[in-house]
């Protein structure tokens, strides 16, 4: 993820100037928002479901050790293997080891943000194993050598013409920009891979502690392919994917698709409980579940940030965010974009890398309003801004200005004379009816004009009746 070191400001500026990208983004996000609004309006108990989902996630996240141990015992009882990884590297090495054990040279993958997070494809390539992304959007960006720009629609930043040219160049087929035909090309190319691969890798949408089931939700059927045809299935999950009971799953099924794509239910919800049993006709002989920490426990340790582990990765906060709609996912510099990414990246990658992200928000609160598990995203962004300031990572100019301001506010005489000075400067330099121009800052914003007379003056004149 090479973009990680480039500041948000620079990436955002570049993307804002890209007319094609902005058109692609606007079309896609508006489409998803309209579909979501219509799907949500059909459910009178929507708010109740959100509150319940929040309570379920809270119960799970507050008792992760209990539920993860229960889950592990259930998976093992059904014949599956469980591996705990503290770091992304440990998880990736374990995947490579399993592939090596089965002499696999090809691994087919269903869409998994967690695998992006740990750089799994790179690790597989280095070990001589070809990872093939099978979600159409992921397949497109893998061909393009890019990273996903959206949690659920990874190639949302590309137009059909761009995809047509990409297929022509990389797959050697004749040019078409018909989505139907492009999809058929991908279908036939990937069918071969599905039938060849001995290892399938997937993420996990929900892990049910009570039954040891892993739940996978896909529209294309690639999730089913990856977990049906290969001899080995490796499922990668963050510790926060756990839900306590099988009944809890119902609530999330009613929320997820409507929030994400505006569908009433996603095409395929697969509930997998263990590897193939003797009586089963097909399915993987081996099931490996990898439970990954990768800095999630640091989030857990922070009482104000704990809620960000409730996220079910629906992508609704991305679609609704006025900043995401304009700058796109790649501007955020790491795998998780949008408002939830602006929370997760500083938490998981540290404030040095994610310092600017809490400011990539208008704090309008639209993200929190659409979140199906009621995460208070914009409040967390405020908390993160506080951490940035507390850790002295804010720009030195800003720190200086705030210090001067604090010093002035504490001294009444100085305050009054500064106010007089400011009025004088405004008269000299500001345009009519506008506030003082502040270098840099005033390019996109207006400083509010000062009142003609200060409160003090009015008070002295007795004009406050």
């Amino acid at each position, binding site marked *: 993820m090479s973009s990680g070191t480039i500041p948000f400001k620079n990436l955002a500026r570049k993307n804002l100037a890209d007319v094609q990208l902005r058109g692609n983004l606007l079309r896609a996000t508006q489409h998803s928002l309209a579909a979501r609004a219509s799907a949500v309006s059909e459910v009178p108990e929507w708010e109740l479901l959100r509150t319940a989902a929040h309570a379920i996630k809270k119960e799970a996240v507050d008792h992760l*050790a209990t539920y*993860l141990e229960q889950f592990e015992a259930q998976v093992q009882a059904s014949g599956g293997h469980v591996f*705990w990884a*503290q770091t992304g590297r440990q998880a990736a090495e374990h995947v490579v080891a399993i592939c090596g054990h089965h002499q696999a040279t090809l691994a087919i993958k269903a869409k998994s943000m967690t695998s992006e997070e740990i750089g799994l494809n790179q690790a597989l390539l280095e070990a001589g194993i070809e990872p093939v992304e099978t979600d159409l959007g992921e397949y497109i960006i893998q061909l393009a050598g890019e990273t996903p720009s959206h949690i659920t629609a990874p190639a949302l930043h590309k137009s059909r013409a761009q995809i047509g040219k990409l297929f022509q160049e990389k797959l050697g087929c004749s040019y078409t920009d018909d989505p139907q035909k492009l999809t058929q090309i991908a279908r036939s190319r990937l069918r071969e891979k599905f*039938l060849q691969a001995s290892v399938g890798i997937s993420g996990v949408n929900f892990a049910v502690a009570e039954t040891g089931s892993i739940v996978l939700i896909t529209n294309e059927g690639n999730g089913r392919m990856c977990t049906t045809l290969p001899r080995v299935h490796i499922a990668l999950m963050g510790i926060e994917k756990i839900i306590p009971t099988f009944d809890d799953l119902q609530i999330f099924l009613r929320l997820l698709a409507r929030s994400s794509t505006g569908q009433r239910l996603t*095409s395929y919800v697969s*509930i997998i409980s263990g590897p193939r049993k003797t009586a089963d006709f097909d399915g993987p002989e081996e099931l490996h579940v990898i439970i990954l920490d990768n800095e999630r426990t640091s989030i857990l340790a922070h009482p104000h940030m704990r809620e960000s582990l409730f996220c079910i990765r629906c992508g609704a906060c991305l679609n609704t965010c006025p900043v995401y709609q304009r700058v796109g996912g790649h501007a955020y510099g790491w795998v998780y974009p949008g408002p939830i990414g602006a929370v997760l990246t500083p938490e998981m990658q540290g404030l040095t890398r994610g310092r600017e992200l809490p400011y990539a928000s208008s704090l309008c609160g639209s993200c929190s309003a659409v979140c199906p598990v009621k995460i208070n995203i914009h409040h967390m962004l405020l908390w993160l801004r506080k951490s940035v300031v507390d850790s002295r990572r804010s720009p030195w100019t800003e720190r200086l200005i705030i210090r001067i301001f604090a010093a002035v506010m504490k001294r009444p005489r100085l305050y009054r004379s500064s106010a007089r000075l400011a009025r004088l400067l405004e008269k000299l330099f500001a345009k009519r009816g506008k506030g003082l121009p502040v270098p840099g800052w005033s390019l996109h914003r207006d400083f509010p004009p000062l009142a003609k007379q200060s409160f003090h003056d009015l008070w002295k004149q007795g004009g406050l009746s």
Partner: protein
Amino acid sequence: MTTDPALTRQVLLARLRTLELSASQDSARSRQWEEIRSSATEDLSGPTSLDQWVNQLRSELQRLGGELRTAASLNDIPSAVVDLARESRYKRIALGDDRLLEEIRLADQLNNFVEFRLLDKRSASNPKDHAGPALAQCQLGITGCQAIIAETATIVLDHQGFGGRSLSLLPECHLVLAQRSQVFGRLRDWWNATQPGRDNLPTCRTFITGPSRTADIEKVLVTGVHGPLRLVVILAG
């Protein structure tokens, strides 16, 4: 650097245990569940009779790009299957292992037609030889189902016996045979009636809602990505 997996597990669990809140917090979740359960009984909007739900199923399935056909009785299912296979020129047909298919003796009925080549547990000496490639060659895969949820046109399918998970996935058309008594209104109606988490779950259970689809290219809806291009339900009774 290699670390001992058992040690990693221990360290991680120990850390998680120190970060656990007291067990008494669970009351909020139970309270929410109670509210959800009571709200379900109050909600009287939407279809009420089975006929209305079947209509809902028909229109929702159609909206998703699927198709509902009806048969007057169980005995009329085989001819409805033959009609579908003939009009679509499906020759290679895979039959799943299901009570309903046995009951209507579908394999025998289809065997009366020389044009069809059947793949089922009887036509295979060792049924497990037919995994993957053989099923991928079939144009039509026929299964029963556990239930159909009308509101969302969702088929609940446990993959057991011959054909397993592949039979409903690899052929270009997936045909589901069901009886009206298997139709439920909403997801919660099915959930409440069957208590799905209580019994032993099958290795794989899938909720199927329409043919496979994507909107990954400019949000344009395309049906038939990796799974079946077509989904047809024949409902009897």
